């Protein structure tokens, strides 16, 4: 360990950490929005749309993120998609995670007991109201643990962005390692930053989960 080197590179590591957080949160938010839209669209009785969405999910879940990112960043210009490295990184993370989020939300909707929808139907509620007021809250609540899990996985996928020169933590770490021949110190510093991030995310996740499922707790446990 060489504290001097670490100290000298700390600003660039912190800036890399910041870029990581920005890419991760923007990509995760995009993925959740897109995934949610896909999950909703998968409930529509339109066969061609269903095939298209199935293919989308299979492609983005079935191929390595690294490959998707390369195609997006290097292949994008061929279809008129000129993106900076960071834009491509965020969009890539969003597309990649949307396939997983779509499945998470689909499972969430599937977990809503049919009886709750039937109760809404029996009082004459319109399908849209039943979806928004009954199915949606229950589905989202059921999805929280899987969402947190996916966000943690996604936070670590951000390292791949270094390959297309997004100046995130991995990229800064590699720069430091290459310039100072201190591979171990650099990796160690990176591990600490990631551990910090994942720890914070999972703690927030646990809080959110406890909060949104509070009403499911039995008397006493809730108080």
């Amino acid at each position, binding site marked *: 360990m060489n504290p001097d080197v670490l100290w000298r590179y700390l600003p660039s590591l912190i800036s890399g950490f910041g870029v990581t957080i920005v890419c991760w949160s923007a990509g995760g938010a995009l993925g959740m929005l897109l995934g949610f839209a896909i999950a909703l669209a998968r409930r529509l009785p339109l066969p061609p749309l269903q095939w298209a969405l199935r293919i989308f999910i299979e492609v983005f879940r079935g191929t390595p993120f690294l490959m998707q990112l390369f195609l997006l960043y290097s292949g994008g210009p061929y279809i008129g998609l000129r993106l900076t490295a960071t834009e491509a990184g965020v969009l890539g993370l969003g597309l990649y995670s949307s396939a997983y989020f779509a499945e998470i939300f689909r499972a969430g909707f599937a977990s809503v007991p049919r009886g709750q929808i039937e109760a809404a139907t029996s009082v*004459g509620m319109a399908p849209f109201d039943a979806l928004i007021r009954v199915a949606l809250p*229950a589905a989202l609540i059921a999805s929280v643990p899987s969402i947190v899990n996916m966000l943690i996985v996604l936070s670590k996928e951000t390292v791949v962005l270094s390959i297309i020169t997004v100046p995130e933590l991995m990229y800064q770490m590699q720069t430091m390692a290459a310039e100072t021949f201190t591979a171990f110190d650099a990796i160690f510093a990176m591990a600490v930053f990631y551990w910090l991030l994942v720890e914070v995310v999972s703690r927030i996740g646990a809080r959110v989960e406890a909060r949104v499922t509070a*009403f*499911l707790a039995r008397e006493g446990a809730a108080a």
Partner: protein
Amino acid sequence: MSLPMIELNGVGKSFGAHEVLRGVELKIAKSEVVCLIGPSGSGKSTLLRCVNFLEPYDVGDVRIEGRLIGYEDAPDGTRRSMNARKLRDMRREIGMVFQHFNLWPHMTAIGNVAEPLRRVRGLPANEAADRAMAMLTRVGLAAKAHAYPSHLSGGQQQRVAIARALAMQPRLMLFDEPTSALDPELVGEVLEVMKSLASEGMTMLIVTHEMGFAAHVADRIAFIDEGRIIEEGPPRHVFHHSREPRVRQFLQTYHDRNSF
């Protein structure tokens, strides 16, 4: 003579190759309480669910005060599905209570009762809450208005479910084994609420295994077996004087079980 509240004519329903209902005939007058009994798998619940078209029937007519539910018959004899909006308008006049309560777990008791008033009847929030509170008071649960379903006993949950259905001011009520999922000591409170409803003149069709309740509260008992109503009449008649071997056999198991 006024139209029957519920009228079933030749109602048939199949799940794939399995014929669940085979030409069911049943008439229920306004303010009448009819209990539907029979062995499990006989089609009781399916029949009940056809009345508000939660389960689409294949053939025959189900009419609510003379109006066909679920389908529209054209003058040329063809039949097509009822417009979704019209179907919803009919459904909101028919209260339904389920075996497993089916309360919405993320809403409080009062939230569960007020929700349909707001979404379906379009009442403003405060009016919906007032009416919901009145309904919860009626089923004896005003004190639990702000509790979530998971904090209520099964009997309390079922009473909230009854309040939710009643708040819509339905013209008739359907009960699908309302006490079957309850611990024995919680059955009474739900039956009490149902009894008071019956005495107020609510038209009720009840699928139940509570023979004592059926005997005391029902105006008529209908016994269903293999998708057909094979016996129908006042409780005294069905329980003690039925000539149908299937009915006698079914009731015998109840007598045996209750005489220990």
